[in-house]
C-alpha cells in the first residue's frame, strides 16, 4: 500500500488542489447560470416566423414561434424563419442579409448574434444567413450539414423541417452540446490513458540479445580477401508526377448594409 500511495501521490495531490479550487469558485461565483437575456431593444419586430409563401398552418406558425422563443433564450441568438414564393429573387443571400439588417435582428445588439433561414418555394433554393456569434461558430461543413438536413425534410413537412433547423441551430450554439461531447471525451481520455498505462506496465521483456556479429570474431574484424564491385550496366526510367487540386468554397461576406454575414445555401 505504501508503494501504491507513493506512486499515486501526484494524482491525489492534483485531485485535492482541483477540489479546493472548485469549492472556492462555487463559493465566490457570481456568474448567472440561467438563460440568456435579450439586450437588443432596437430590433424593429418581435416576429420570427415570416411565412410569406404560406407553407405553414396558423397552428404550426404558433408552435414554431414558441419553439424559437424557447430556443433563443437557450442559445442567446435570434432565429428567423422566412418562406417566400418569388421566382424573381436573383440573390437569395442578399435578400436574406438585407432582411436581417433592415429589421436590426441580433440577440445582444442590432446586427448582432443571430441567423435567418430563407426558403424560396418558387425555386426550391434556401439560404442560411449567419451573423455575430453564429457567424463565428458555423464552419462551412456545419452550414452544409444543417442546410442539407433541413432541405431533405422540407418537401415532406415544412414545419418539421423548420423545427429541426431551429433546434439543431440552437443546440449547435449552446454549451450543452459541448458538455455532452466533453462528457464522452471525459470517459474516452481516461480510458485511453489507462489502457496505455496498463500496457506499458505489463511490458515484460525477458531480455535482449547483447552480442553482435563480431563478438566472437578474433581481433574483432574479419579479413576481407576479395572485395570487388564491377559495374555492369545502367538504365533510367521516368514518370510524370500528378499534382492534386484541392477544393474550396464558402466564406464570409459584407451585406449591402455593410454588416458581416456568413452562411450557405441549398436546394430542395
Amino acid at each position, binding site marked *: 500500500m505504501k508503494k501504491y500511495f507513493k506512486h499515486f501521490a501526484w494524482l491525489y495531490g492534483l485531485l485535492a488542489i482541483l477540489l479546493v*479550487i*472548485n469549492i472556492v*469558485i462555487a463559493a465566490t461565483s457570481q456568474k448567472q447560470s440561467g438563460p440568456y437575456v435579450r439586450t437588443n431593444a432596437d430590433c424593429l419586430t418581435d416576429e420570427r416566423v415570416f411565412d410569406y409563401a404560406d407553407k405553414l398552418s396558423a397552428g404550426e406558425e404558433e408552435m414554431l414561434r414558441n419553439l424559437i422563443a424557447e430556443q433563443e433564450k437557450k442559445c442567446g441568438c435570434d432565429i428567423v424563419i422566412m418562406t417566400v414564393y418569388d421566382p424573381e429573387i436573383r440573390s437569395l443571400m442578399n435578400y436574406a442579409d438585407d432582411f436581417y439588417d433592415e429589421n436590426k435582428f441580433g440577440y445582444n445588439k442590432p446586427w448582432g448574434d443571430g441567423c435567418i433561414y430563407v426558403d424560396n418555394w418558387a425555386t426550391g433554393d434556401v439560404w442560411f444567413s449567419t451573423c455575430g456569434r453564429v457567424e463565428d461558430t458555423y464552419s462551412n461543413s456545419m452550414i452544409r450539414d444543417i442546410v442539407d438536413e433541413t432541405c431533405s425534410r422540407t418537401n415532406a413537412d415544412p414545419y418539421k423541417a423548420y423545427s429541426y433547423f431551429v433546434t439543431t441551430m440552437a443546440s449547435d450554439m449552446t454549451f450543452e452540446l459541448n458538455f455532452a461531447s466533453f462528457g464522452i471525451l471525459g470517459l474516452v481520455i*481516461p480510458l485511453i490513458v489507462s489502457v496505455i498505462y496498463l500496457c506499458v506496465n505489463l511490458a515484460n521483456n525477458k531480455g535482449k540479445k547483447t552480442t553482435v556479429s563480431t563478438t*566472437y570474431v578474433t581481433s574483432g574484424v*574479419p579479413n576481407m580477401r*576479395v572485395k570487388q564491385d564491377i559495374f555492369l550496366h545502367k538504365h533510367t526510367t521516368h514518370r510524370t508526377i500528378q499534382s492534386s487540386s484541392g477544393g474550396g468554397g464558402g466564406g464570409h461576406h459584407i451585406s449591402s448594409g455593410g454588416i458581416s454575414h456568413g452562411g450557405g445555401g441549398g436546394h430542395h
Partner: protein
Amino acid sequence: MVYKCLNCGANAIFDPDKGKMYCPHCDGIDSEQLQPGAGLNSCVVCGAPVEPDQYTSATKCEHCGSYMIFEERITGEREPHLILPFKVSKQKAKDCLKEKFGKKLFIPDGFLKEASLDKMEGIYVPFFMYDYDCTYEYSGTGKKVRRWRSGNTEYTETSTFQVERVMDVPFDKIPVDASIKMEDGAMDLLEPYDYSALEAFQTKYMSGFLGEMKNMEPSEVENRARHKAKADAESLMRGTMTEYEAVTPTRQNLNLIGKRTQYALLPVWDYTFRYKGKDYHFKLNGQTGKLIGATPISWGKAIGYTATMFFGLYAVLGLLLNILGGL
C-alpha cells in the same frame, strides 16, 4: 572435496568481491586447505547424506551448509579446461534484481523480499566453446538506385554491379551450454562473457557455489555453435554491401572448419520465484550482471492501479470542466 579454513576449520569459499578465498566464520583470507571428499553420498564435513543428481559437480550440504565439490565429476575426461570465476557476489546479484524490477508496479508481494532473494544460488554452468575458421565466398548482383526530379518528372536511375566478396572470419570460443536443465534461449541471452578473465580450471573457484558437469558431448550441441557462427558471418557479409539497395546472390559458399573445442564452466546466478503454482526463473550473468527473466504479474495489483488511474483522471477532468465552466 571441501575447502577448509586453516585458522578455524570452517568452510572457506571463493568471494567474488575480494577475488580471493575467504572464511565467513573468522574472516580469514586465502587461508584455505583442501580436504579430500567422502564420495557422492555423504557430506565430508558433517557426514550427513547428500543426494546430488547425475550431473551435479558441486553442491551445498543441507545439514551443515558446507559447499562440497565432487572430484569424481571434475577430473579426468570430465575436467573442464577453463573456468570463469564469479565476479558478481550474491549481494550484487540481489541488487541487480532490485534495481531492474524494483520499480515494476505489478510484481507480486514477496518477489523482492530478502527471504525470497536469499534462495538465489550461484551455479557454474558447463559450456563448450568452439573455435572455427570460416571462409565465406559470395557472388551476386547488386543494384544502386538514384532518384531525382526535374519539373513534374521523376527520374529513376538503376545501376547494376557484379558483387564479389571473399572473407575469412576466425571465430574464437563461441559458447554453447552443455546443460539439459538450463534453457538454451536464456543461456544465449546471458552472453557475452568477458573472456579476458577466463582461467585454467581450478577447483577453488567452485567453493561457495553449486556446479554442474557437462551433460553431453561437444558433438551433440555443436549445431548451435555452427548456427551462431553462420548467422554472424552472414551478418558481417551483409555489412559489406550496405551501399546497395538490393543484392541478389548468384553463388554463396560458407565453409566452417572446426579448430578446437574447450570445456568451460561459466558463472550464473539462478533465482526461482514460485507464484500461484508456477515457477518463474531468473538468470544473471555471474560476471557481467546481465539479468534475464520475465516477472510474474499480480492481476489484483494491475486492476487496482489501472482503475485508480482511470477514475482519478476521470475525476480530474470532471473537476477541470467544472472550473472552466465556473470561471
